């Protein structure tokens, strides 16, 4: 055989093998990306970033959540009942603004008449280049969220897809009933450690000061990302309501950053101010800020022991707040809120914290 023929035959054979694997994977669709599951019972074992594009395409909704883990516990059935919508929660833990924006874009692509986007604004998400997405090991599969179809080959021709398919089929064979229900799939906190005053005291005592604020924590960097990822979508979809909100982190979380370097607070308040100024230019945007709401953020009974996340009943409380209360109405009102927020942090004392269960009881939810 000539070398030329050898190379041609090798190329044809390799192309054939790739085509064969891709066709089989297209038909079996392990992440249920091309269609709703019909060939076998789905078990949703893939990580969120891989599983979400299929859900965004094939679920029925008119309202989508795009958020970090602070938004993961919004239960769709509760949201639908209280807000009178058909929602889907596409929150991704530790997601960057670009990832959240790609989630929203994917939702718009498949649901052109999307009524509402509920978007959590998180300093972390905006602290980087506007195109920043998560890298390995939990990398963000951009090719599954974008509009291009040709790069779906990376999904069709991937060992990860085969692994997911194999595990799904094995789970079906073994009768494993875990991870079958989409609504409860990514909810968390049921077995979280309980927060305590001692734990908070120790953490605050051990905060190591940071001499210089990292450049990506500057409000100018974060605003760039906000403009490119949020405002661009707001402009492109004037008939969709964008509900932006700052999640009620526990007050001691903010204090931790303030103790590291007071500039964190300065930059964050600057960011909030700028975001409001930009957002109020568009009639389809509303903004809620829960971070100065003392009844929530000073009550350690609302929080898990990781000094960050609240329990799922706070997600329900937020939904009720959306339903019953108006967003920020004016620059003046927001300035007062921000002043209040700043004072809460600068004048913080652990003794101000309390542990009451009124909200928890009101929502009668186990955590």
């Amino acid at each position, binding site marked *: *055989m000539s070398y030329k*023929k050898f*190379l041609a*035959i*090798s190329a044809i054979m*390799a192309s054939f093998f790739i085509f064969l694997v891709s066709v089989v994977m297209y038909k079996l669709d392990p992440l249920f990306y091309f269609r709703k599951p019909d060939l076998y019972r789905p078990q949703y074992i893939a990580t969120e970033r891989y599983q979400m594009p299929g859900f965004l395409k094939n679920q029925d909704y008119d309202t989508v959540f795009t958020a970090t883990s602070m938004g993961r516990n919004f239960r769709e059935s509760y949201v639908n009942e209280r807000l009178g919508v058909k929602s889907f929660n596409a929150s991704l833990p530790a997601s960057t603004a670009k990832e959240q924006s790609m989630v929203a874009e994917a939702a718009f692509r498949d649901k052109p008449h999307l009524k509402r986007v509920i978007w959590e604004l998180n300093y972390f998400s905006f602290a980087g280049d506007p195109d920043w997405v998560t890298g*390995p090991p939990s990398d963000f599969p951009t090719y599954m969220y974008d509009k291009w179809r040709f790069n779906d080959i*990376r999904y069709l021709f991937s060992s990860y897809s085969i692994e997911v398919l194999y595990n799904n089929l094995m789970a079906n064979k073994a009768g494993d009933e875990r991870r079958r229900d989409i609504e409860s799939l990514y909810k968390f906190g049921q077995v979280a450690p309980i927060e305590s005053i001692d734990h908070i005291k120790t953490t605050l005592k051990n905060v190591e000061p940071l001499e210089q604020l990292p450049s990506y924590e500057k409000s100018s960097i974060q605003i760039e990302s906000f403009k490119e990822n949020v405002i661009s979508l707001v402009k492109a979809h004037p008939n969709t309501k964008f509900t932006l909100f700052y999640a009620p982190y526990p007050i001691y979380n903010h204090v931790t950053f303030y103790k590291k370097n007071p500039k964190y607070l300065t930059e964050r308040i600057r960011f909030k101010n700028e975001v409001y100024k930009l957002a109020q230019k568009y009639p389809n945007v509303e903004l809620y800020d829960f971070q100065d709401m003392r009844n929530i953020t000073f009550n350690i009974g609302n929080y898990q022991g990781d000094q960050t996340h609240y329990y799922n009943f706070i997600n329900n409380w937020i939904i009720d707040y959306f339903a019953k209360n108006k967003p920020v109405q004016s620059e003046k009102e927001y300035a007062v809120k921000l002043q209040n927020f700043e004072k809460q942090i600068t004048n913080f004392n652990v003794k101000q914290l309390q542990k009451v269960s009124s909200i928890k009881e009101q929502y009668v939810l186990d955590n």
Partner: protein
Amino acid sequence: MLFNSYIFIFVFFPIVFVAYYLLLNLKNKSIAKIFFVIANLYFYSYWNIKYLPIILSSIAINFTLATILNKIQKLVIKRTVLTIGILFNIGLLGYYKYYDFFMTNVNAVFKTDLSLLHLALPLAISFFTFQQIAYLVDTFREGTKEYSLLDYAFFVTFFPHLIAGPIVHHREIIDQLRDGTNYKIKLNNIASGLYIFSIGLFKKVIIADTLAGWANTGYTNIATLTLFDSWVTTLAYTFQLYFDFSGYCDMAIGLGLFFNIKLPVNFNSPYKSLDIQDFWRRWHMTLGRFFTHYLYIPLGGSRKGNVRTYINLFIIFFVSGIWHGAGWTFVIWGILHGVASVIYRFWSTLNIRLPKLVAWFITFLFVHIAWVFFRSPDLTTVKLMLTKMFSLQGFHFPDRLTAFFNETLGTHFIAATYYFDLKLILLFAFILGIVVFAKNSIERLNTFKPNYRTAAFISLIAVISLLYLSRVSEFLYFKF
């Protein structure tokens, strides 16, 4: 950019391949070479653009010194220039690679608080520094007047060998680069290159990265390992390193062939070795060649009596240990190989021949144990792992055997809770069989014939490897 990545295989490499041969059609061949050097520098900077000035200044300074060496006649001045050149290269390597290690030890010994640099190690610095030292020494010895800066930059930055070797001799690359017959596509080289590149890709992506899973898990959970698990962990690493490095070498050779450049063989079934000297003739062969030509022989080699030979032998392995990494684990690894080589040298004078199997077993066991030092992040881990491997306290029988002994003999053994599956023994026995008895990829390349069976074979292994590219991981030798 990694050889085992989508961006390399589907974007960088095809673009460079097509553009290089298209540009070679021009009358002025320098344009193609300039393009290739730029592509090499892009390949290098893809990890971190900060490294680029380091390699550029290293090339510029070494070439300037070589030009001076080529011009001057007086031996004293030539020696001075050569010394400056060697000091510059060693200084560069020392500053980036060893400064913090040295200072940490100074601080520990003298209870001082001298600050560290915390510099990221520039990629491939150990490789391009050695190649350029060799170039300066050869220029001093025999002159290299015929080289242009472009040829020289091509030789240093040629991307198939740039990051992790082989450590090539300048003539090996530049002579082939200047050979006019290499300016056109040679289908036999492309076919051979594709053949060995596919084998290398499979070794790395499928075999080495799978073994890495067990090795990393074991080293991360060292405290919970039983005696059996510790051997699984360390054997997984011993084989991982073999397939990782040989896979990389195969891919480098394959890529070189695509551009009609034959790179030297760097790996020749080292685990088939029957003694430690044989092992070093088969493992990282070009590093051994460098040390022999530019350290061992200048030190006197074996010409100055037995004691001096032993010392010289020990020195090259000691330096080799330090070259591999700035840490005590690497230093001790080098010392172990140095001592073993000296012992073997002495042993070989006694003319006592061990049975082949015994000789192989001793060599493999020694190399395997020495890899524990190579892999461990610190000496505490080494101690812990070796204790696990050789302490019978960590030995427990499997479930069924324990039950059998307890029932029939009335013993009170406790069944082992193994971290790893016992079936891995079978897999490792199979892998050992391959590395010891099978023909290696270079032997296969030498007998390579284009036919349907080979086409099906490489298509299949290439496609399987591509399927697993999503779990991208770096080559182990990239950090040296």
